[in-house]
Structure formats: C-alpha cells, structure tokens
C-alpha cells in the first residue's frame, strides 16, 4: 500500500513555508542560511515524490534532486565563507550590520 501523493505535497508545502517564515523573521546570517536549506529540502521532496509517484518509469526528478543536493552543498560552503568574512570585518553576524551596499 503506497502513500497518496497529496501527503508528500502537503508536507513539502508546509516545510517550504516554515522555511520562508524563518527566512523572513530571523536576522542572523547563519540562521537565515539554515532556513534556506529547509526550503531547498522541501523542493527536493517534491521532485522525488513527483518522479516516484507520478512518473515511475523515468528518473529526471531523482537526478534533479541529486544535483540539487550537490549545488546546495557548494552554495552553503560559499555562503559560510562570506559570513566568516563579514564577521571578521563587521564584528557582527546580523544582516542589519551590512548596509553599505544596500542603496
């Protein structure tokens, strides 16, 4: 007995918007990056569930998820490097401290 595909959609939509909520409300750079990871994971769940439960014969969604995992690893490495540099220069890890290039 398989799980209906709607369950995956509802779960991933809830996870996505929890991540969006965190991204809006948090002001710490590392916390915002963690919320971005949550959002990426929600999308990955959708890719895998679409592929498995609607188009079981093909593998596009699975490979999209695989590459998305790789890209998000690279993205978080670069973002962490930037955050460390920001902390070194501004002595703060809040987004409100970086306003020089805002306008």
């Amino acid at each position: 007995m398989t799980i209906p595909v709607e369950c995956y959609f509802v779960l991933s939509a809830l996870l996505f918007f929890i991540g969006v909520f965190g991204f809006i409300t948090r002001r710490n750079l590392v916390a915002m990056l963690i919320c971005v990871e949550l959002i990426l994971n929600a999308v990955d769940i959708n890719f895998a569930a679409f592929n498995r439960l609607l188009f079981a014969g093909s593998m596009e969604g699975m490979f999209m998820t695989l590459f998305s995992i790789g890209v998000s690893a690279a993205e978080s490495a670069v973002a962490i490097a930037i955050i460390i540099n920001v902390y070194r220069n501004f002595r703060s890890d809040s987004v409100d401290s970086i306003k020089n290039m805002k306008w």
Partner: protein
Amino acid sequence: MANIIMFCILAVVILGSAVMCVTTTRIMRAATFMLFVLFGVAGLYFLLDYTYLGAAQISVYAGGVTMIYVFAIQLVSKRTLQGLTERMKGSRVLWGALLCLIGCATVILVLLKNQYIYTGEAVADVELPMKKIGEALVGAGRYQYVLAFEFISLFLLACIIGGLVVSRKEEEK
C-alpha cells in the same frame, strides 16, 4: 500500512524539528534541529525506494553541510554562542506568519485542486536498481546525465576555491 505509519512518524519529526529550528533563538540548536530535518527527509527518500538518494542526502547534507555549519557557528559566534538571544520583533513575526499562512494555503489548494496529479501511473513497489542509476549518471546518450555530472563536479571545485579565497585572511601590509 507500515508505510503510512512510517510516513506519519517522519512527517511529525520533520515538521516539528523545522518549527523548532526556525523558532529557537540559539543558533546551535537551530543547526541541530536542521540535522533532524535532514535525516527525516532522507527517511522519506528511503520510503520512496530511492535508496541511493537517501544515502546521498545523509552523506552530503547530514555529513558535510551540517559540519560546515557547526564549524562556522563555532568560528563566528564564539562569544555569543552560549547566550545568543536574538530578539524577534513582534510585528515582523506577525506579518511573516500571516504571509506564510496565506502562501501555504494557496499552494496546498492549487496542488490538491488540480487534476494533473491523478494522471500518474501505478508504482511498481521496487527499489530503483543501482546499475540503472549508474548508467544514467555517466552515460552520454539520451536521458543520461554525464554533462550535468561533470558540470556539478567543476562547479563544486570552483565553489571550494572561491570559498577559500573569500575566507582567507588578508595579509598584513
């Protein structure tokens, strides 16, 4: 039946950990709860019979990315790690929650109301064989992904070098 019970357990773990992750004010706890979310998502992949994907999720995300986060937290907020109480503004939380509720309702309504999702074919409840994945990953034919695979490897290398350059200490003049 066992599938559904497992799915419910995983859903509770994922959503509970995600909520704790975005509401806790301490960054180290947020990273730990993110680890639980990542394990839960890997469990979902195992449940979908994508064993390879689950293994990749655990090894890359839970093994690699979380380690990067823990290192960064230890490096960045060494002083503030113990008592980091990030202040959350009430109005911003309220507006954010409202926006997210509206967006979530819209997305779920669209997903559930459209008939496209009922066009799916019956799922063979078997694991995707590793041989098929490997051939598709390094083959150059139709529906094979060697170009994307090579591009991802170059991209990772470029990002690692870029990260090293960005986070390197400036030399004293």
